[in-house]
C-alpha cells in the first residue's frame, strides 16, 4: 500500500515537472495545433493533386489509342509523362528527404517552415492519393462508362456523374488509411525546425530529463486522433453504402 502511494506521488511529481512547471504543456498544445494544421492543409493539397493526376493518368490510359493524331494528343502524352515522373520520384524517395530538400534547397530563402512542410507533405501525399484514386477509377466497369457515353454525355461529364461518385465510394477506406499515414508521417516535421506534436514532446523530454511522461503523452494523443478519425470514416462509409441497399 505504501509502495503504491509512493509510486502515485512520484507520478504526480513527474506530471507536474513535465507539463505544469514553466507551462510546459504549451509545447504539447502548440505542437498538436501545428500537427493538425500541417495534416489537414497537406491533405487538401494532396487530394487536389492526387485527383488531378489520377484523372490525367486514367484518361490517358483509357483514351490515348482512340485519339486522333495531333497537337492535343502530343500535349496529353507530355502531361501523362510528367505525372508518371512525379509519381516515380515522390514514391521512390523518403518523405523526410523530400521535406529537407524543400526546406534547405528549394525554399532555402523562405523561413516559413510551416508552409514548406505543408507543401512537402501535400506533394508527397498527392502521389499516393493519385494511385488510390486511379485504382478506383479503373475498378469501375467499362460498361458504366459506355452507358454514360451512349446517353450522350461527353467524357468529362461521364466522369463527373457516373465514374467519380462510384470510384470515390470504392476508395474511401484506402483514402482514410492514407490520411492516417499522413497524420503520423508529419511527426518528422521537426527535421526542419517545426514544433509539431512529436517535437513538442521531445523538447519537454530534453528539458526535464524525464522521457516517460512526454513521450507516452504524445503517443496517446496520436492514438486517440487516429481512433477518432477511423470512427468518423466508418460512419461516412456506412452512410454512403446505405444508399444502395
Amino acid at each position, binding site marked *: 500500500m505504501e509502495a503504491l502511494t509512493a509510486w502515485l506521488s512520484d507520478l504526480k511529481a513527474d506530471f507536474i515537472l513535465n507539463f505544469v512547471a514553466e507551462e510546459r504543456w504549451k509545447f504539447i498544445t502548440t505542437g498538436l495545433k501545428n500537427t493538425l494544421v500541417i495534416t489537414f492543409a497537406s491533405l487538401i493539397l494532396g487530394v487536389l493533386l492526387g485527383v488531378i493526376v489520377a484523372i490525367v493518368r486514367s484518361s490517358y490510359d483509357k483514351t490515348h489509342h482512340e485519339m486522333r493524331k495531333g497537337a492535343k494528343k502530343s500535349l496529353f502524352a507530355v502531361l501523362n509523362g510528367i505525372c508518371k515522373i512525379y509519381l516515380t520520384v515522390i514514391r521512390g524517395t523518403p518523405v523526410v528527404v523530400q521535406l529537407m530538400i524543400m526546406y534547405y534547397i528549394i525554399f532555402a530563402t523562405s523561413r516559413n517552415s510551416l508552409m514548406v512542410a505543408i507543401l512537402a507533405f501535400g506533394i508527397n501525399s498527392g502521389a499516393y492519393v493519385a494511385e488510390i484514386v486511379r485504382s478506383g477509377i479503373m475498378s469501375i466497369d467499362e460498361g458504366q462508362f459506355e452507358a454514360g457515353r451512349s446517353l450522350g*454525355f461527353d467524357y468529362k461529364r461521364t466522369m463527373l456523374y457516373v465514374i467519380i461518385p462510384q470510384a470515390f465510394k470504392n476508395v474511401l477506406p484506402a483514402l482514410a488509411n492514407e490520411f492516417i499515414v499522413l497524420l503520423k508521417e508529419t511527426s518528422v516535421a521537426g527535421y526542419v525546425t517545426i514544433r509539431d506534436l512529436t517535437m513538442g514532446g521531445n523538447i519537454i523530454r530534453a528539458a526535464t530529463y524525464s522521457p516517460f511522461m512526454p513521450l507516452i503523452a504524445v503517443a496517446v494523443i496520436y492514438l486517440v486522433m487516429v481512433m477518432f478519425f477511423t470512427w468518423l470514416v466508418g460512419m461516412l462509409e456506412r452512410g454512403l453504402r446505405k444508399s444502395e441497399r
Partner: protein
Amino acid sequence: MSDKYLIETKDLCKYYNGGAIKALDGVTAGIKKGEVVVIIGPSGSGKSTFLRSLNLLEMPTAGTITLDDVEITAPKVNINLHRQKMGMVFQHFNLFPHMTILKNMTIAPMKLLKKSKAEAEKTAMELLKRVGLEDRAEAYPSQLSGGQKQRVAIVRALCMNPDVMLFDEPTSALDPEMVGEVLAVMKQLAEEGMTMVVVTHEMGFAKEVADRVVFMDSGTIVEEGTPEEIFENPKNERTQSFLRKVL
C-alpha cells in the same frame, strides 16, 4: 417505314493489332426509319462490333457511318449530340448503381436536354408505367431482378427520345424466365414504329418481330433478307450451317 436510310454504313472496317484481327471487314448496310433489323451470327462474327460502331463506342478503322444525312465518322463531328438520338441497351444493363431508378432515367434528359426536373420525372414515370415498374422508381438497381433492370435500361434510353434504339444482346445475361418480359417490351416498341437494330440469339424474336434479318460471319454480312427468306430458305452455306446449329 420510309425508303430513306436513317443509318447507312459504307465499307465499315474495324481492325485490331494493326490488321491482324479483322472484327469488321467492309460492312455496307442501311437501316430505314421504322425498320426493325435483327443481326444474327456466331460469336466472334462482328455483329456486336458492328452495332457498337454505329454510335462510335467502337471507333471504326475505316469506312463511314451516316446518321440522318450527317456523316458521324467525319472528324470534328460532335458525336455526343448524335449519340443522344441513338439509345443503346447493353447485355449487362449498365444501370448506374449509385442512383435510384428515377435518377438513372432523368439525369441525361435534365443535364443534356435541359428538361426541368418535373418534366423529366413525368416522362420517366410514364415510361416506367408502360413497363410495369412505376412502383420501383425510388429503388436502387441492386434491388431489381435482371429482367427488371433490363426493362429500366430500355426506358432509360427512351427518356432521351431517340430516333433509333440499338440492342446489344439484351437478353443474353438474363435468367431464362426473365427473357420473355424483356422481349415483350422490345416487341411493343417495334409495334409502335421505333427504328431498332438488335443483336440477339433469340431466333424466335427475330422470326416474329424483324422486318429484316442480317446474318454476319467473319466481320462481313453474309446474307440478309426477310425472316422467311433467312430462316426458311437460307441461300448461303454458312447461314445454313449456323441455323442448323441454333434452331
